[in-house]
């Protein structure tokens, strides 16, 4: 059982964390991009398309960055906290646009 926990802690956790972090960051960025562009008067579907085109390369980059620099806190802060902040901002912008 110790082997199982060891593998989980040293391998599975970093992969899952990098994946979730990268995803959250991408989610935040894409939603902020869409709501931001619409807020600035852009077309909704155009913004959506740009978001989806950029999303996966960015996700990929953030995943690698998080995974490779495991010892550093910066990537984790950037992806998790940054992702959460961007998501909140996007939500706020949406509320502003809809009013």
């Amino acid at each position, binding site marked *: 059982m110790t082997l199982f926990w060891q593998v989980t802690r040293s391998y599975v956790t970093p992969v899952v964390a990098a994946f979730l972090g990268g995803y959250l960051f991408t989610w935040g960025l894409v939603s902020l991009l869409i*709501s931001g562009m619409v807020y600035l008067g852009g077309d909704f*579907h155009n913004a959506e398309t740009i978001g989806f085109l950029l999303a*996966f390369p960015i996700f*990929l980059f953030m*995943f*690698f960055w998080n*995974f490779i620099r*495991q010892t550093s806190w910066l990537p984790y802060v950037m992806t998790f906290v940054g992702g959460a902040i961007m998501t909140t901002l996007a939500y706020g912008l*949406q509320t502003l646009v*809809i009013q």
Partner: protein
Amino acid sequence: MKFANTRQAMAWLHTWLGLIFGFVLMICFFFGALSVFDREIDRWAIPDTRFDPQPMPSFDNVLIDVFNRTEPDIAEYNRLMPVYHDSAAGDITPRTELPADEYWAYTTHRDPVLLMGIGFRVPKPLNTKEHNHIHGRATIDPRSGEELPSNSLKIGSDWFYPLHYSLNLNWNFIGFYIVGIAAFFMLVALVSGVWIHRKIFREFFTFRREKKTQRATLDLHNMSGVVALPFHFFFALTGLIIFAAFYYLPVTNTMLKPLHDMHETMEANATGLPHQRLGITAQIASVDDMVTEAKRRWAARDMAGEVGFLMVHHVGDANSYVSIYRAGSDRVSLVGEGIHFKSSNGEVLREDPPHSTAKSIAEFLTGLHLQHFEHWFLRWLYVLGGLLGCVCIATGFIFFTEKRKQQHAKNNSQGSRIVDAFAITTVTGIIIAAVSMLVANRILPADLANKGDWEKWIFCIALSFSFLHATLRSSPVVRGEKNPAWREQCFIITALAITAVTANWLTTGDHLIKTIFTTPYWAVAGVDLSLLAVAATSWKAAARLQSESIEKEQSSSEAAYE
């Protein structure tokens, strides 16, 4: 942590994530490659539909009758009606009395049959903001308007094709998510693979078959990965983009849905295409005249073409309109150049304007994956790309076990044995399953009730058989030797593929001389020839593995004798 450097971290990611998701990716690549010819496999599997592709038939004479007699799907009605219906507003509407809200018909340059669908609306909905559609579908012979028997399964477009993006696991879309995650890690494996291989250019042409299995396998792994690198990368990426809005990054369907809905209403005002029903009944004018007008307008723009997709919105209402889209057979992007008509009088409401740059890029990327274009040579190159992907993943599995099995044999570990059994299931097993399904399709009686379901079961049983067989025969791997299941399953594939071709001949009379020379029908000939190619290749592989194992036995018995 314990990675000494970036290269080691990359190597770890490539090895382990490639291994775990490789089993899923094999299914995506193999059945994706088959999906390039999904319509042709359909023709093989449903002999009644072996005739030439047809243009969109007359709406006024053929389609409208089919729409009028098509009913909502029973299973979908039972599942969704209680959810959509507002029981406080009155009694539930019986299934056959649901009013139609939208009609659509869809065909491509490869389709003899026509796919049609209806969205029925719920008269007393609980949530008035939603669409609340319950669907009905029909596949017809466009020459007569007759429906195909409902027991026949379109093996290509309704089983192999969805298998490659959803694994046909539809419970909560779990299959879509598994494939999505696998596609993401395909990208990870590609990037990390390129990172750890320094001599990309040399690997283009190097396959030293005379070297040890481990080395030769690695050569083939590198070559198949590198030569088709753009294919592998862009198919994984575009696959993710195609489903981004619905499954993988549903930002605008969840969190930003209010923004999306606001835009929909704004867009409806700007385009003049009504977003909602008005509530006043109205008749529909001649849709055939609208089709003629649409074709005239496309020709005027120097892009004459056939109708690929036709849709009637808000059926029977004063707000109803007809959207007519062009079949995209001569270009990659699936644009459609839609022209919209008012249903009641056939007046043109709107022509879709050219799209923005971002939209055009996205349409090119999704179009290159969905391949609506008419280009047989490129189709075959895509099959080759998909099969190179399979080779790359399969050699990855073999390299993994070859590298470790001696070590595992010493430590008495079961690791290689398990990986090898899964590898057999996802390499030879999926071929056995696919070909068994085709054999079953030809052998089961045509009028068997739920024939399609039987075929699906046989696919699953064959796959399980392959896994069981691979597991039961796996003990030699523990001694550092090859699993005989590889060879045995290759023999099984040969036998099945030849049986399939023979069964097609015996049950339909369409043998290769007929389908190639006397009355050419390339869809069926192509499937038959591919099956024969599979038979020949697997026979060769099996024979090679056989002679290898005999040699080994002889040398070991000689060693014992001395």
